[in-house]
């Protein structure tokens, strides 16, 4: 596992994706800060943070979240395909045993993306707190916090504990990023050909984005959606994103490849 992390670290393509995921939320912040400097619009740190999506056009969020598994495949999830191409998997399987090898592959493709996203979003939040100082009441786009949300428990909670709610969403997004990496790894294990793995992974992810109850709902805090909207989305996404790795793991352990 350690060698696998080192392999990600030493790979220029993987590190390029790492820096990309790290910089995109900061670029989003820079866009809002630019608006503050030029036009004097004041933002609250939580409203200016990446997940809230205050920038016009949401380009950063779309670039990052809509195509997430593709980046993660390039970063580390498709390592299995690389292994099969140069026969490295046979060496590792005879050294570690098949179960350990596959488990390590899946664990790495869960934790490396998840941690990357956690670092990127936390950095974005810290920078936002440093750059923006306005109170919620005086901030642009703060109408969410001044609305009376009767019957919407999540919105009430967001008004009382905005930072806690934001952090819960942040952890949830990191978790989902981990699952997106896992999705790529599982599909590349079932079908170890790049030209099928990439489109299939993208399709499974993107259909969840375009559905009427989009997975984006559980990514974005401070919206009009309450628990009654978000819990079914969370359950559905977890079922999809857990089933595919599970099937892949069982299939891979049961079949013989050497």
């Amino acid at each position: 596992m350690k060698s696998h992390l080192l392999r990600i670290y030493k790979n220029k393509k993987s590190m390029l994706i790492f820096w990309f995921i790290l910089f995109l939320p900061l670029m989003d912040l820079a866009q809002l800060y630019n608006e503050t400097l030029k036009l004097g619009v004041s933002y609250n740190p939580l409203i200016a943070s990446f997940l809230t999506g205050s920038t016009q056009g949401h380009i950063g969020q779309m670039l990052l979240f809509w195509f997430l598994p593709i980046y993660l495949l390039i970063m580390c999830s498709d390592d299995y395909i690389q292994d099969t191409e140069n026969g490295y998997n046979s060496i590792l399987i005879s050294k570690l045993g098949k179960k350990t090898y596959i488990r390590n592959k899946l664990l790495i493709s869960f934790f490396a993306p998840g941690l990357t996203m956690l670092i990127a979003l936390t950095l974005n939040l810290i920078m936002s707190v440093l750059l923006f100082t306005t109170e919620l009441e005086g901030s642009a786009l703060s109408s969410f916090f001044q609305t009376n949300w009767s019957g919407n428990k999540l919105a009430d909670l967001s008004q009382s504990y905005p930072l806690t709610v934001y952090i819960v969403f942040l952890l949830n997004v990191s978790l989902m990023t981990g699952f997106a990496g896992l999705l790529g790894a599982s599909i590349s294990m079932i079908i170890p050909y790049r030209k099928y793995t990439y489109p299939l992974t993208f399709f499974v992810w993107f259909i969840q984005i375009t559905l009427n109850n989009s997975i984006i709902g559980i990514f974005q805090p401070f919206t009009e959606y309450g628990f009654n909207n978000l819990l079914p989305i969370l359950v559905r996404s977890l079922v999809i994103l857990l089933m595919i790795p599970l099937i892949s793991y069982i299939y891979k352990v049961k079949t013989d490849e050497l």
Partner: protein
Amino acid sequence: MKKAKNIKLVKLVITFGLLAAIFIPVTSTLAAENYYDYAFTIKAYQANTKSGGLYRETTNTSNRWRVSMYESTESSGKDITRFWLSGSDNTKLSPSSDVLEDNGPYYADAYSSASQRTVYLTAENNNYNANSYACYGYWDEETN
């Protein structure tokens, strides 16, 4: 002879004065609170939607514009749509305003670049998903 010319001048001044007295109040009421209807289809994939243009006469940035949304078909509950003013070249002329369905008008300032030019009400989904939906309500480019 000289006196008659003066009288003519006085008559002229009075006539124009009267005309001005009639027309100036009329033109200044143009900037009062108006209810211009809009009906938008918020496009999928975060594309922007624009209304017809209105001339914003004021040079005062704190002469606020407003927008209200009667109804939106985004979800079964109350929904939010994001509005701002833009120019014909799609430049942003005001800060954005997140408007909740059926919750009265929302007021916001404009940038100085919005002074004395035609402005368009522009909208996009506040959620960064791919949904498309319809919404309608009223807006006004200046309220004072």
